[in-house]
């Protein structure tokens, strides 16, 4: 209830500011679209099916890049957690590459993979890989030694230890890493689509700039926000279900 009220207050203030601006002519009217104008753009683009297409294109890129990165991060995370030599070799490289803002490499991806789908998917995979890998590897290595000892004295082989102790105990950390990675994917898709894309939410927003249609920019941004929080809520729900033993007290 409070959340709904807060949202209404936010929309109301926006309307007041935008319409007030119209009355006072503080800045040119077109620079500050009203909620009504944004809704009109939404209705128009939703009506002709182009909005659905943009959403679908972006979602597909996010999904492909994210799944690719999650699989790679999980596999490499297990290897790193199990092998100290690999860990020692990889650590400096990762520490070196990780702080580079991913967007700095975006042009490189366009050079490598061209303007098509591959460059976007690869870029999302690249961006989301590092935080997911670091989070997963850390949670895989944080296993309680007593649990490993308990399992070993119950007859667990090395393989059993991985599947029945290390992985289950790392699941909370893994799920958190996935959630983080997904959030990041939604974050960077826009940037990737700003540069040389012919469809997608980023392209839709960029079009709003090119054709001077601020309402379209705002609509695109708001829609991404809604999409992000929906996916977030879904992931949290899945997390709760999968981890009911943690909150069971």
């Amino acid at each position: 209830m409070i959340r709904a009220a807060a949202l209404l207050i936010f929309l109301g203030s926006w309307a007041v500011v935008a319409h007030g601006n119209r009355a006072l002519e503080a800045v040119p009217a077109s620079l500050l679209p009203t909620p009504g104008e944004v809704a009109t753009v939404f209705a128009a683009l939703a009506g002709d099916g182009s909005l659905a297409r943009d959403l679908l294109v972006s979602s597909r890129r996010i999904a492909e890049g994210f799944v690719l990165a999650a699989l790679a991060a999980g596999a490499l995370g297990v290897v790193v957690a199990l092998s100290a030599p690999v860990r020692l070799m990889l650590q400096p490289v990762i520490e070196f590459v990780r702080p580079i803002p991913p967007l700095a490499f975006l042009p490189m991806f366009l050079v490598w993979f061209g303007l098509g789908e591959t460059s976007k998917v690869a870029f999302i995979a690249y961006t989301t890989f590092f935080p997911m890998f670091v989070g997963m590897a850390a949670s895989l290595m944080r296993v309680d030694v007593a649990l490993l000892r308990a399992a070993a004295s119950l007859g667990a082989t090395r393989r059993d230890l991985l599947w029945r102790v290390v992985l289950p105990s790392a699941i909370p950390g893994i799920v958190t890493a996935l959630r983080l990675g997904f959030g990041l994917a939604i974050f960077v898709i826009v940037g990737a689509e700003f540069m040389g894309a012919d469809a997608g939410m980023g392209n839709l927003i960029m079009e709003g700039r090119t054709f001077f249609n601020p309402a379209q920019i705002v609509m695109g941004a708001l829609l991404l926000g809604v999409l992000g929080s929906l996916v977030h809520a879904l992931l949290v729900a899945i997390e709760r279900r999968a981890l009911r033993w943690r909150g069971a007290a």
Partner: protein
Amino acid sequence: MIAPGGRIQIENVEKSFGANGHAMPALMDATLEIQGGEFICLLGPSGCGKSTLLNIVAGFIPPTRGRVLVDGRPVTGPGRERGVVFQEYALFPWLTVAENVEFGPRLAGRPPAERRELVARYVGMVGLSEHRGKFPNQLSGGMRQRVAIARALANTPSIVLMDEPFGALDAQTREVMQDELARIQRLELKTIIFVTHSIREAVYLGDRVVVMTRSPGRFKEVFSIKLPQARDRFAPEFTHYESEITRVLKDEVGAAHA
């Protein structure tokens, strides 16, 4: 009753920790022969190496010198014939009570019907049948340790190694758990090595009580507790053992602070 196995020979076991040049000895020249079905309590001041010895017998850490034989075979790592109960329970938090108890039999590939039977038997033995579907963090400390004991026993080991299993429990729960363990031992007749720093607990549970010196730990004296199986904590004989062991142990604790 004669236990089918579980004979332990501890032969000149020594353990040092740290780098080669600065090795700190933790355990010196431990030698003891334990018969199948015997209940041994290891008693000593903290840091005397009693947990170290238990970890060596469990196969978690190798000795620096000497060796441990179980039924004539040298210990090289953890094994299912040696169940372990930890002070901090070490239950798998993502598994229910029943699933925790089933862990060992499942690894051993026992058929489902047999597993169900084992779970029912041991969860029942520790009085947790009503809680079999709960997760560990829904249970009290005493209940968690009961699950840990059931989990170790359901794997049908010949030996159970217990590292201060009741150390984290309040005094009342502790005595209840001691009673239960004594009762279970009469049913199951395992070889048990039980690490504790409570003299009362050692005299109440042990067939023999091994008193260790302060660090680096050695065996100082071994007491055979010749009391009936169901013990009375207030009997004069009980108190007699208690005061005798207290005297021996006091020298060690006193010397540690000298």
